[in-house]
């Protein structure tokens, strides 16, 4: 994908940027009083407990240290106001409604194929997040070894992903996979929030990518983040009508950074925030190689019947502003 984006960048022209305001990214949301609000922690630091349970290969103390390291990675993102605090060990397992955010291992045979997941309890009147738990599936083999261990999943990588959810981020589609006889594996991912795990033994997902930082900054960014970054807004259309659920990728030829977003309404509109100012190449593609249910609640309405297409010009993102009216026209497969 990166090669193709660069090729298009070389022959594209510039689009002048307009206006301001950075808005939506792929963020977790819920309905409150008939409208959708983003899941966001109103009070920082985020206080969390760790379940006092060992699993083969990982003690509770190692789990706590690994989770703390993963929180620290998110908290250290530039110009993002995030902080976290370990509140202590608990005998309570995760996924309970107990007004405490609990992170730990749990055996759930009904959650086969799930390495880890995040849950929220939300007050449907105020919209407040009451708690958020992360569970790691004790049925899988885990490792906290610095260099990873063959046949075991890297706990820090999965913790980093789940903590991204705990902060309010949804999934990213910035990843490439390959099919091998009997299975599918991740070749590369430009986001920690890509939903498919790297193979056991890999430690490739321990550091944030541009897409993660953009998303985190969109939710918790400081004023410095808002004034130093920019955004792109526009639409994806097919035969003049909006396309729902299209994946949009903004690629900076100067830095090599990629940031993704989605069209989240029937009119095909999108906003991608947290972009580096300057030229960006923008592409729309169908989410036809993914488990759409793991991205959107409106999976049945997502349109995957179109060919990938580039915006026909380079988009110049203004510092602290928005490049608007970027319409990417796609056609059916």
């Amino acid at each position: 994908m990166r090669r193709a984006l660069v090729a298009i960048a070389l022959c594209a022209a510039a689009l002048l940027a307009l206006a301001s305001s950075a808005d939506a990214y792929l963020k977790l949301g819920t309905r409150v009083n008939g409208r959708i609000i983003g899941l966001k922690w109103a009070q920082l630091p985020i206080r969390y407990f760790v379940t006092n349970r060992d699993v083969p290969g990982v003690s509770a103390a190692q789990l706590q240290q690994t989770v703390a390291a993963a929180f620290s990675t998110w908290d250290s993102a530039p110009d993002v106001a995030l902080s976290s605090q370990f509140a202590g060990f608990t005998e309570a397992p995760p996924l309970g409604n107990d007004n405490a955010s609990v992170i730990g291992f749990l055996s759930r045979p009904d959650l086969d194929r799930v390495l880890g997941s995040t849950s929220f309890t939300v007050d449907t009147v105020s919209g407040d997040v009451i708690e958020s738990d992360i569970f790691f599936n004790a049925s899988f083999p885990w490792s906290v070894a610095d260099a990873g261990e063959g046949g075991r999943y890297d706990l820090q990588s999965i913790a980093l992903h789940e903590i991204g959810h705990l902060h309010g981020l949804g999934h990213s589609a910035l990843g490439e996979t390959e099919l091998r006889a009997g299975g599918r594996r991740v070749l590369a991912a430009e986001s920690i929030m890509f939903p498919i795990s790297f193979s056991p033994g890999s430690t490739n997902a321990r550091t944030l990518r541009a897409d993660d930082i953009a998303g985190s900054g969109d939710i918790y960014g400081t004023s410095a983040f808002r004034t130093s970054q920019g955004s792109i807004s526009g639409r994806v259309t097919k035969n003049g009508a909006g396309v729902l659920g299209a994946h949009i990728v903004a690629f900076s030829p100067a830095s090599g950074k990629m940031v993704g977003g989605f069209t989240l309404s029937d009119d095909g509109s999108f906003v991608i925030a947290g972009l580096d100012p300057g030229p960006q190449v923008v592409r729309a593609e169908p989410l036809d190689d993914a488990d759409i249910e793991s991205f959107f609640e409106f999976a049945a309405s997502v349109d995957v019947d179109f060919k990938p297409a580039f915006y026909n010009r380079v988009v110049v993102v203004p510092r602290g502003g928005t490049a608007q009216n970027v319409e990417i026209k796609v056609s059916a497969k």
Partner: protein
Amino acid sequence: MRRFVAFFVFALLSAPVRATVLVPIEFRELVAVSPIILHGHVVDVRSDWIDGRRAIETIVTVEPAEYFKGDLGDRVTFKVPGGELGRYRTIFVGAPVFAQGDEVVLFLDGTGAAQPHVVGLSQGVFRVVPDRRSGLSLVIPPAVMGRTDVDAEPVVRGDIARKPVPLDTFRQAIRQVIAEGGR
């Protein structure tokens, strides 16, 4: 009015998104490990406390139109994590959300449990959607339908061969895998 409708649609569709880390299931394996595979309509969805009010789950009832594998009778009830009770909503990110009237193909497992669950959390759910132009019932098939004749092949997003297929085609694909022994 048009403006209102546009806003309403946006409000409905703009957010809830999902999340978890999955180990992907290849289609042939999905068929093999699912004791129950059915096509049907959701007729009831309700949430309830479990484990002595420790957590909320949603109980979904489906009226099967046909079974591809197994048989649980005229009505099938299964559970998904998360749900809403009173003032509180538990969002289990990554869990599928159902509504009354949904038409689905489901891959279920109930081994050793009181109620079946969807295999692979969301990976065992395929929505059936009518095509506005043709009127056909369409299914977005799995990204990888389980070829066994390749060593390694990149999964290319936007592949023109990968598009929604008629329910009948999906039905045949499931039955073919079952006929071949499930794998």
